Each structure stands twice: as C-alpha cells, then as structure tokens.
C-alpha cells in the first residue's frame, strides 16, 4: 500500500498534475505522524501510511498557506474524504482542483479511535484513486450513535453538570475550531464583538456559549471526523455534541453530512413535512 501511495504521488508530481502532496510523515515508527507537504518527487519516501495516521488532512485545503502552493493532492481516509464533499457543496473548493488519494482504512489509533469502531467508510467513495482494499461494514444508526445514547441515559441535570465541568476545563485555545475542516470562516463569530455574541473569556459562560455555537454551526456539516475531540488538550468530548445534531439530522431528514454528494444541505433547505410536534 505504502509503495503504491508513494508511486502515485511521485507520478502526480512528475507529471505536474499537482504541485503539492499533502500526506502523513513520521519521525520514527514510535512517534505520532505529522502532516508533510511534498512538492518534490524526490521526497515521496517521506510519506507514510499506518494506523497512526489520525489527522484529517482535509483541514489544510482551507488554509491560505497551503492554497498558495498550487494544486494539491491529498491523502484521505474514507471518513476524512466526506469533508471534501461538504466543502465542495459549500463552494469552498472545486472538486477537480484537488486530487484525492483515498486510502482503504480499517481504523486508526492504538487503541482504535471511537469513531473507527462505528465507521462505515472504510473504503473512500469520491476519491480520484483508491489505494488498498478493505471490506466496508454497514453500520446501523443505533450503533453509530450508541455512545450518545448511553450519555443521554443521564438525567438532564446530570448532563448539564457534565458540560459545566467540561466548560470549566476549556482553555479556549480553539484547537477544536482550527483543526475542523468545516471551520473556514474568515472571521469566526466568537471574534465578533459588535455585538458580542459569545463572551471571549474562557469563563464557564463564555465556554458554554462557545461550545453551543461551535456545535450548531456544524449542523448538517460535521462529518464526524472527531478531530475536535482528538486535539482538545483538556480532553473535552465534543463528539457527543456533534453527534447529537448528526443523529437528529439522520432521524428527521435522513441526512448524513458528506455521505451523499447529491443530497441537499439541510440548513438551507426544508420540507413542508418537517416535524413540528414540539411547536404549539
């Protein structure tokens, strides 16, 4: 698999099909992987592929520093790839402006990341080339949202207490925002102070408002790559929040972000049949 990956990238660079390959590198087999940006075919050997390739590299497609390097090829897992689908829907990139190298992936992380345990995207769908092959399990919604389900067994009061605790810990380092492929706003709402939508302080109040906003701004957009959760230095389990909206979207609108390239974005469309049992 690795050889095929490296050869593919070498070719892409040599043929001038792309200017940069965004992939995974690694100091040594023990250390975690880090992103590499390969512009010279000679360097493709720096590319690695293993179960330490956690980062969702798609987030780099939004960064001006990377855009300035020219047309890019990107190494993407099935889960990461969904972010590309959404970005395209939201006019953030033209599909043919990036060459997607899809990696067959049965899960990453030691131990396996929670998302991998319920992943139904082992095989990439929209990639320009798919490297490797692995069977794609089908996962039903109950399994997909099992974690949330068990969390919701807590009483509302307990849930509230839980999030207050988490928010007390939050440093507002914005790693969750910065690492998210969907957070491409030029000016984040949290940085607006006229009006002050969200207290910029890392106070419980400010953090609470921030996490509500972050999660809801991803409504119908979050592809569940869980990077926000992985990178949180104080270990806040943000995936529960993302999941709660994703679940609602799937239940109420049969919608999963980034899964069906032809599906209408749910924020921005509506059905006259949308439920309103909660509206008096």
């Amino acid at each position: 698999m690795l050889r095929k990956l490296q050869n593919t990238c070498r070719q892409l660079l040599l043929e001038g099909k792309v200017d940069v390959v965004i992939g995974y590198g690694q100091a040594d087999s023990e250390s975690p992987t880090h992103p590499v940006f390969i512009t010279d075919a000679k360097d493709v050997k720096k590319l690695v592929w293993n179960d330490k390739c956690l980062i969702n590299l798609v987030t780099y497609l939004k960064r001006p520093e990377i855009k300035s390097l020219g047309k890019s090829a990107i190494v993407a897992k099935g889960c990461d790839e969904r972010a590309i689908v959404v970005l395209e829907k939201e006019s953030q990139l033209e599909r043919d402006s990036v060459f997607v190298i899809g990696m067959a992936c049965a899960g990453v992380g030691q131990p396996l990341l929670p998302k991998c345990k319920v992943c139904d995207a082992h095989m990439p769908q929209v990639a320009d080339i798919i490297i490797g092959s692995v069977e794609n399990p089908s996962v039903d919604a109950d399994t997909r949202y099992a974690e949330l389900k068990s969390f919701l067994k807590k009483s509302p009061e307990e849930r509230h207490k839980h999030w207050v605790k988490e928010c007390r810990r939050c440093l507002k380092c914005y790693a969750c925002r910065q690492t998210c492929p969907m957070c491409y706003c030029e000016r984040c709402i949290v940085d607006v102070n006229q009006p002050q939508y969200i207290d910029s302080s890392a106070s419980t109040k400010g953090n609470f408002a921030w996490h509500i906003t972050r999660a809801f701004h991803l409504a119908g957009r979050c592809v569940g790559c869980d990077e926000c959760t992985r990178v949180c230095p104080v270990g806040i389990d943000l995936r529960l929040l993302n999941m709660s909206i994703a679940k609602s979207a799937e239940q109420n609108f049969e919608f999963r972000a980034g899964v069906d390239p032809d599906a209408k974005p749910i924020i921005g469309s509506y059905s006259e049949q949308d439920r309103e049992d909660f509206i008096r």
Partner: protein
Amino acid sequence: MAKIGVFTCWCGENIAQNVDVQHVAAEIAKLPNVHCSIEYKYMCSEPGQAMIREKIAAEKLTGMVIASCSPHMHLNTFRKAAKNAGLNPYQVEMANIREHCSWVHRNREEATLKAVDLVKMAVAKVRKNQELVPIDIPVTKRVLVVGGGVAGIQAALDIADAGYEVVMVEREPSIGGRMAGLSETFPTLDCSQCILTPRMVDIGQHPNITLHTYSEVAKVEGFIGNFKASILKKARYVDVNTCTGCGTCWNSCPSKKTPSEFDFGLGTRTAIYVPFPQAVPAKPVIDQNACIKLTKGKCGVCMKKCQANAIDFDDKDALVEEEVGAVIVATGFKLFQIGKEQDLEGQSGYGEYGYDKYPDVIDSLQFERLASASGPTNGEIRRPSDGKVPKNIVFISCVGSRDNAKGVPYCSKVCCMYTAKHTMLYKHKVHDGVAHVFYMDIRAGGKNYEEFVRRAIEQDGAQYHRGRVSKITEKHGTLIVRGVDTLAGLPLTIEADMVVLASAIKPTNGAQELAQKLNVGYDNYGFLSESHPKLRPVETASAGVFVCGACQGPKDIPESVAQASAAAAKTLVIFSKEELTRDPEIAKVNEKVCAGCFTCQRVCAFNAIEQVDIRSPNGKLIKRIARVNPGLCMGCGTCVAVCPSKSVDLSGTTEQQVYSMVKSLT
C-alpha cells in the same frame, strides 16, 4: 454621542389607566443618551406631533422613541413627523405599551414595570439605529408578455395604449391562442373570432408592440425594473418583412398531408402554412419536418413561386435580447391528454373512453373546431370517421377533473358552461339530433351563466344525466356509451354517433420550465402561483413578474381578460415612476469577511443573493462572495440567521440592535 428623545403617550386613558406614564417617563429619563423624556396625552394628535417636531429641532435629537401604541398603528405617522423635523425617519423606534401592555395587564404596578422595560428596549435599539435612505432602482419601461392568447393580448394592448413598449412572445406561428380556435362563446353565443381577431390585428399593427411569433423565452436574468430576456426565434424559413402573405406558396405546396395543429388533427395543412386564415402575422412558416425540400433536399416549389423572394431555406434559429422592466406570463392552458397522459401519479387516463381508438370520440376543443365556421367542416357538425352528421351525441363532463384516482382533484371550471354551449350549438345545427350530457354537478356561477344552462336544457332540450360513464365501446360504427343515471338510480346505455369529452384543463406544456426561469412558484399541477390568493392575485414571488389567464388556474374568457388588465395595471404602477423606490430595511453583506458558503443564497426565497467574484487588479480571482440585490431583497433576514460568520446583516433590525435590546433586559 447619541441624543435620544423619548415621548411617552397616555393615549388618553387607554395607557394611563393601567400604566403610570409619569413614572415611566421619569425612569427612562435616567438612561444614558436619553436627552429628554416627555409624556403627553395624545402623541399622535397634531399638537403631540408638533411638540415632537419642536423637540427634535430644539434638542437636535439624533434618535427618538415613541412609547405608545403598536408600530403597525403609528410607526409611519411618527416617521413622517421625524422626517418633517429633519430627523432621519429610520431613527424612530416605538415601544408598544398599549396593545402589549396597558390593554392586557390590569395590575398597574406590573404593567408600569413592564412598560419601563419595553421603553428601555426601544431606547437600547434606537441607540444603534443608523440613518437609512430608500433605495432607488432605475426602471426599463418595457414589458415582456409571454403568450399571445386573449389574456396576453389584453394585457399587451392595455399597456401599449398607455404609451409603453410591449414585447410579445408567442410560441405558435400566430397569436390568438385557444380563443382563436373556439366557435361561439358562452353565455352570449357571440362568435369567438369576431371579437378576438380585431384585437389580434391591433397587436400586429400597434406601434408600441414588438411581436415575436414562433418564438420562445430562452432565458430571463435580472430583477424588477431590469430584466434581460433572451428570446429564441425558431427558424421560419420565410422572411416576414418581405413576405406579402399572398398565399401562393401554401396553395402550391405539394406536401399537404400534415394534420393541422389548429384543428387538433381534424383537418390537414401544407408544409408551408399559416395556422388559420386570420393569423397575425398573416405570414407563413415552413414546417421543417414536413417540407420536402428541407427533408429530402428536392422540391422548393414555394421558393420558385414566391414573387417576393421571401423564402429562405437556410434560415436558422436565432436568439434576440430584449430588456424589459416587467414580465407578464399568460401562457394559457392545454387539455388533459386523455388516454396518453401519465405525467401525474395515478393518472391512468380514461383509456376506457376509447379516445384515439374510436375516431368519433373527440375532446371539447376538437368539437369547437367542428362547430366553427372556419373549421375543417366549415361549421357543419360531421363526425370524423365518415363525415356523417351525428344524430345522437353524448357529452361527458369532468373527464379528468375532480378525479383523484385518474385525473386531477380540481374543477376545471369552464367545462359545465361550454358543454351547455356545445349542446346548443349542436341543436342549432342539427335540429333533429339529441344531445346527451353526463355530469357530476352543474357549476354555473357567473353572470347569466345559470340562465344559459337552463336555456340549453329547457329550450334546446339537451338531455342531462347526472352520472358517470364507465365505458365506451363501438358496434358497427355506433358508440355504445355505458353509464349510470344516479338520479334515476338506473344504469343508462346510449347508442351515440359521436362522443365529446370535456377533459380537464391543465397548464400548457413548458409552463413549469418558464416558471423556473422566472423564479415563480407553481403548484403540483404546474399552475403558476400568485403571491397572495386574495390580496396579490396577479403578483408572484418574484417582484416585477405577473401572471394572468389560465396559466394561473382554470378560467373563462371574461376572467382571463379581467386578470390580464389587472396585470397590466400592476405593470403600469411600476412604470409610473422613473425609479423604483425600495425599502432600505434589507440585508447587506460584509464582503470583507464573507467566506462564500452561500447558505444565505439557499435560504433566500426571493433570489436576492448573487455570487460575485472579487478579483485582484490583474484579474486573479481572490474570492467569491455573496451580494444582496436591493431590487429583490424583501428584508426577512433569514440569511442573517444562517450566516455562521454573521457576514450579512439586516438594516433596521441589525444584530447590534437586537442584541442590545436583549441585553437591556439584564
């Protein structure tokens, strides 16, 4: 530094009885930026307004709050007052302490407390108000009328006579539409063509009207006052300008076998033809599928015969651009295609009536042609199969209408009337014949309509049977019509020579595609949607686009004409000013921070948001952002709510204003 004046109104006792107005004024006077806080018996009265004007001038107020009744009641009153005193009218806010307070709360203490809060909120808001000026948009005083039927003709003539240019687009080679093919019209039985053709001629000759026949609307861009329409002129192979319409060509054309569209296949026409003698323009077109020259390359007789050298076999489809300020859609209707049409769920379509199978089962428009003096039988009722005059004729109404199972649920409205008319026309021509009618109900709402139906039954002896027909079969050239008379409660079988089906009215082909080009809504059946069923019956969701005639729903001629004149009047309102003035309380994009996700565009019901490329001086694309078209924005603010970076805001109800109101409650 804002200088805010607050004027609290007693509204006589209306407010004062449950709200301590003096206390409110005193409390509000303490607020920052509040320059003066005054209470008075009747703020809306002339003395009240005079006082307000004085204060504005004397204190040089930059904003004011009127604490009184609902803004729906008096906001405009006080905005005017402000304007007259030199204060921007959009610097006025109202606190509704009457409808929302004094009238609904008896406890004076609580009501007063609430009133103070409501005024506080208004003050907090007005602090953040900005001066706004109404937006002027230039108007192109030309109208595009799509469809040259009676509705389109009426609208076009009204507007042209008012002195404005009209561009009319008609898909067929001639204008006239359905009405041109009718024989007589109910309830007066006057000849359809006699009343229509003069109007058609007027269209052809009117100096203010540009006529594009044999043409279709390809694309419409822009917005109210500023539309750009591209019109596809189909290759006609005849130069309309040089052609004299002498008729030599169609009289000498060897290809004569094409069924005539105008006669619904009951007659034939030549390959080069005018659809009917009174056509406007009275210039022929060549049917490229029937023309021997165009299909086989030989022939060209017409070309040789034509004195005016008007024939041009190299003619091509052409696009013409027309700039207009308004669009009137009058594309009319077609009949439910019995037995064929499967375009709607569950429409199995009346195959059992044998339409298309038995030549003597025809639809109502075909009957109109048979009855028409200019028709294929010159007005004699002769059945298609053998030209025999039918002695027994059966009319079946509601074929497709009011039928969820096989047709459409709605009533086609005109069938009852024209069926009665048909029986009369028949009886007047075939005195010894019998006309049977199968009906569900007779709907004859309209001036002289009921009387008309009674006449058909009582004077002309039409046999009305309340019931449906289940099946039609043929035996030795006779049609066996099996039905039931529900009043008699008996099955009823009639041996008929001819059967006429009053089939449902549906929007003409392509109506939906056109609606999409114009961003006009349409219902499940393709009828175009008016923007309010009662108060805005000819307007549509897209400003500057109007509907009239049967494209909006089944209608008879008088209704279509009335609606057409209404659409004309609405258009003339737009043309009555040099510039359109639009409310400035609309959305605006902060292009510096817009990230171009275009969620705003997806939620906008008025197509008011467009994508704009920001380029560097050397033309390099920097980014693509959203921009609001002030001509289209209606100011709902849905875009503001969905914009994650809050790069779009709504003047008059900005985020700043709303949030300061909420914060003022802490």
